[in-house]
């Protein structure tokens, strides 16, 4: 059974249809890539799933339960975590306190000690232990992205939506981030990955969904997607197709 199911989901902002009749089924344990040009509606889709917006029409089911219309804090407690394109730390708190917040409120730790243990295990998993007492505002960008991951892990999510976690990182940092995402997936967390870097998408995803003008224009295995005429036209461009004949992806 799918862990996350979107049926005919649309979101209208005034005259703009940001998300247009999207169907999507995500199976447990998958890493699904969500790609598309800027303004295609990827982040809006994340906002719909996490309860920031209530869809204009359509339904969203998580783990067999309707979640459209629930508040963000309720959805997060069910086990849907996200990271933001622009990192959102609590700047005046230490790394440890930042990660204790989701452990306390979303994962429902019963005591401060329990929250601290949960937070520490997420922090150690992501290799942030040396910086645990540093204020979040003093971390580097790569560090803050890692903090976002630690925060979402501490929520003990079943589904994790990663909204461009790699944007702004240098190639070496991206390789490290790739390993981390893989390690998180290995813990059984289902991941939906929004990404512009084809290298990352091709490396990680078992399935790719392409959005364009709010609508889903293609869905399939990474190799199929890179050969899809519509995807090439809308997003990848002819140069990508020519540089990767036969869809061989090295981005």
């Amino acid at each position: 059974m799918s862990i996350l199911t979107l049926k005919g989901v649309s979101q209208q902002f005034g005259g703009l249809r940001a998300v247009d009749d999207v169907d999507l089924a995500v199976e447990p344990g998958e890493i699904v890539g969500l790609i598309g040009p800027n303004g295609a509606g990827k982040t809006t889709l994340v906002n719909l799933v996490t309860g920031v917006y209530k869809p204009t029409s359509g339904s969203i089911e998580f783990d067999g339960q309707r979640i459209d219309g629930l508040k963000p804090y309720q959805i997060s407690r069910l086990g849907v975590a996200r990271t933001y394109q622009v990192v959102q730390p609590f700047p005046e708190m230490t790394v440890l306190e930042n990660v204790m917040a989701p452990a306390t409120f979303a994962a429902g730790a019963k005591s401060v000690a329990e929250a601290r243990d949960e937070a520490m295990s997420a922090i150690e998993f992501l290799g942030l232990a040396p910086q645990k007492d540093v204020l979040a505002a003093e971390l580097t960008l790569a560090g803050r992205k890692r903090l976002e991951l630690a925060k979402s892990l501490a929520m003990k999510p079943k589904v994790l939506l990663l909204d461009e976690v790699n944007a702004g990182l240098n190639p070496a940092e991206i390789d490290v981030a790739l390993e981390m995402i893989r390690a998180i997936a290995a813990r059984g967390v289902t991941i939906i990955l929004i990404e512009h870097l084809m290298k990352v998408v091709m490396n990680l995803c078992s399935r790719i969904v392409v959005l364009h003008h709010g609508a889903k224009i293609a869905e399939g295995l990474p190799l199929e997607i890179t050969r899809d005429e519509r995807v090439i036209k809308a997003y990848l461009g002819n140069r990508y197709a020519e540089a990767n004949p036969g869809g061989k992806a090295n981005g």
Partner: protein
Amino acid sequence: MTVRPIYVLAALLLVAFLPLVGDNYVLRLGTMFAMYAVLAQSWNIIGGYAGYPSFATAAFFGLGAYAGAILQGNGLPMPLAWLAAGIVAGLFAALMGAAILHLKGHYFAIASLVLAEVLLEVTTSWTSLTGGGMGLNLPVIRMSVEAQAQLFFWAMLGLAVLTFLMSWYVSSSRIGFALRCIRQNEDASSMVGVNTTFYKVVAFVLSALFVGSAGALYASWVFYIEPPDVYSVLTSVKPIVMVMLGGAGTVAGPVIGAAAFLVMEEVVWRNFLSIHSAVLGLLIVALIFFLPNGVLGFIRKRKRTGADHSKETAA
């Protein structure tokens, strides 16, 4: 070095021995200090921890004063009237908070400022219940002047201690953690599972309960209240200044700020009688300008730069 809450509690309890050493003037100052401490600590919950710039203190204070006065006028014993006034103010805060706490920043500040204005108008026009602009007299207490001064001093100080314990509890509890998250990033808070609406309303109610009781206590203390007195906008502004002086979002800061403010107010009042509000205003501007994080923030910053310095020399 930060000021440990336990020291502040000890200092508050030491103040309780004031009647042994001071005359009625000193007792009046002590009562004022305790009242200021209640107001400042209460504001600190919504303004300091949650970061919502509330100007509703005067609304809670005035509502409490009138609720207490009316209940006492109808024969309710004084302590029960104080308790009931706190509950009335708390309920009012719960209702109003649910309505205006989705506003942010300046919008919330203005909405909260209007609360006192509306209550002022209602109180002034509802003559049959409140006496309107004529004000309201409270039942006379059969006690010597000295005994009364001591009674109200201890009662107000007791209320300040209760408020302190509440603030201390909040700072180390889930509520305080949630409020600090909300202050720093409200959207991210709801993403990590914080029910922001619930915690904001809780903070608003906590910032009203003890202020309502303080209003009722004040009414009993001064025997006579009128709308412009208890709903004065200064009642909303002073606690903010005190918290800024002491250090927002800390347990000890508001108490230190309340004491510092009272001393300033009293000194300025004595020496510049005709222009005291102008001098006090200038002093406040200067302090906020040079101590943006309050006395506690200043101490902490000195400690931090000191630590950095020693690290540098070590390296």
